[in-house]
């Protein structure tokens, strides 16, 4: 015994065994990882975890000591035994409550770990994002070998949210009336639904047609393809000319579609798979832009009439049909011409 005690105290100081005890205690106290995940936070959540861990260890130790004592004093009478039992029960209940809380905290930690799965897809620099945005409008020339597709999710997500904001703007200025649901819900549902749904559908078709593209790459490709949609919608929701919209639809929408189609062609073998895949994607992409313009933005040329009224708010929520507005514009023009002619 003296030999073992001597071996424990063979650190440099005579009280070396004391230090060893502390080190043992430190390694035994198994701090939960999540405490060290967020390093600079001073939030009480992590502190509570640490305090509870210390309390629990201390409770365990005193529970052991109390159990040892109870075994000794159990024969002294029922009174002492009952008191000891109640204390033990209380401690067990507290222990179980702490265990339940710890289990929930571990689940939350696993949620954080799931977020870490997405971390490599957000590893981008601003320069890269800007370059990819511009490249999404430039169709590639070489379709003989597979084109590289960036597998990143930051750019597509930001583009989808931007499109939600632009749609919201368009819906409000055109006075779209949503009966079942809310404006925000419709905008978010449309944009995210398109991005996720069409990506999955094209990925499924690509699987059928033996194209070499992964789900992440498809999400990324279609997400960046929304950049063209965003620019067209941003311009045409503010400048109300139908012919301008058609030109932009063909040019910018067409460029972005061509880019996506070229990338898919370069990764598919055989004329008919290529035709199926690219035809579907082109049709869906172009038709979506058409749908966004006409479903959520009716021309509000009535504003030009009503700005002359004294008590009308400038952003009028009046939905008008195109033929009626066209008639109104024609009438107003003729009236103004008549007025000019009469004044002369």
């Amino acid at each position, binding site marked *: *015994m*003296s030999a073992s*005690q*001597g071996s424990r*105290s063979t650190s440099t100081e*005579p*009280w070396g*065994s*004391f230090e060893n*005890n502390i080190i043992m*205690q430190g390694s035994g106290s198994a701090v939960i990882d999540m405490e060290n995940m*967020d390093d*600079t*936070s*001073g*939030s009480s*959540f992590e502190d509570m975890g640490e*305090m509870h861990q*210390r*309390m629990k*260890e*201390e409770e365990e*130790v*005193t529970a052991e*000591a109390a159990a040892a004592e109870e075994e000794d004093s159990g024969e002294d009478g029922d009174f002492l035994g009952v008191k000891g039992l109640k204390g033990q029960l209380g401690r067990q209940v507290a222990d179980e409550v702490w265990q339940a809380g710890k289990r929930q905290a571990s689940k939350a930690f696993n949620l954080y770990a799931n*977020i870490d799965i*997405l*971390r490599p897809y*957000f*590893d*981008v*620099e*601003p320069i890269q*994002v800007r370059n990819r945005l511009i490249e999404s409008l430039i169709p590639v020339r070489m379709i003989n070998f597979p084109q590289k597709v960036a597998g990143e999710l*930051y750019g597509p997500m*930001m583009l989808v*949210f*931007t499109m939600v*904001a632009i749609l*919201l*703007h368009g*819906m*409000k200025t055109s*006075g*779209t*009336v*949503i*009966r079942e649901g*809310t*404006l*925000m*819900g419709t905008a978010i549902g449309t944009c995210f639904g398109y991005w996720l749904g069409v990506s999955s559908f094209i990925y499924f078709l690509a699987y059928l047609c033996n194209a070499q593209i992964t789900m992440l790459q498809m999400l990324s490709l279609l997400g960046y393809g929304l950049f063209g949609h965003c620019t067209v919608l941003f311009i045409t929701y503010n400048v109300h000319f139908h012919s301008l919209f058609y030109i932009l639809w063909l040019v910018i929408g067409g460029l972005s579609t061509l880019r996506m189609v070229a990338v898919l062609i370069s990764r598919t073998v055989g004329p008919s798979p290529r035709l199926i895949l690219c035809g579907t994607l082109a049709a869906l992409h172009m038709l979506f832009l058409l749908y966004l313009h006409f479903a959520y933005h009716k021309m509000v040329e009535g504003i030009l009439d009503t*700005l002359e009224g*004294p*008590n*009308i*708010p*400038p*952003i009028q*929520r009046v939905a008008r049909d195109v033929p009626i507005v066209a008639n109104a514009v024609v009438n107003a023009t003729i009236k103004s011409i008549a007025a000019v002619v009469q004044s002369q």
Partner: protein
Amino acid sequence: MAEVEESSKRMFAGLSDISISEDIPVEGDISVPVRSQNADDDFSTLDEPVKDTILRDLRAVGQKFVHVLYPKKSSALLKDWDLWGPLLLCVTLALMLQGGSADSGDDGRPQFAEVFVIIWFGSVIITLNSKLLGGTISFFQSLCVLGYCILPLTVAMIVCRIVLLGSISSISFVVRLIVVTASFCWSTFASTAFLADSQPANRKALVVYPVFLFYFVIGWMILTFSPSP
């Protein structure tokens, strides 16, 4: 046995001021004082009158409001984060943006739940984004900062409401546009001052853009609000 006790007493001779008996292990004795302090703290905040608790929390919230209005590089918002302020601001904004009529043709006005959900889910998404981009800020700290920086937009909403009580004309629209734009820039700048420090230097733009979008959407909802006739 006596030799062992003597040797242990010699080992602990330098620490005779710490009274440790050989039976109880060292761990138990060291943690007891910590535990009693915690128990005292718990009892002291439970026993104080409710007015004291509320006033203390309100004072903390007010202090953070001042920090938002004059955004300096301080860490007060980050060190003691709390979500009372964001909740207050969010509820105020949502109540003021709420429409009055239940079933008219003018359903485009945002409802209370819509504004509430936009603010909280927008904050969660921005926080997740900044964490995924490698930020060192914790989840709730980021929520706290984003929520508190809605304060300028809430003030703009109050100003717009007052302006709309007067005449509704293009002048009032221009005034409201200026006020909302100024407060939106202020909000974005204030939250950037707190959030961007926690990001690696070359990725600040990637974090600022979603914040910009978020406050833009809220500012747009405020600008396009018109009261029911």
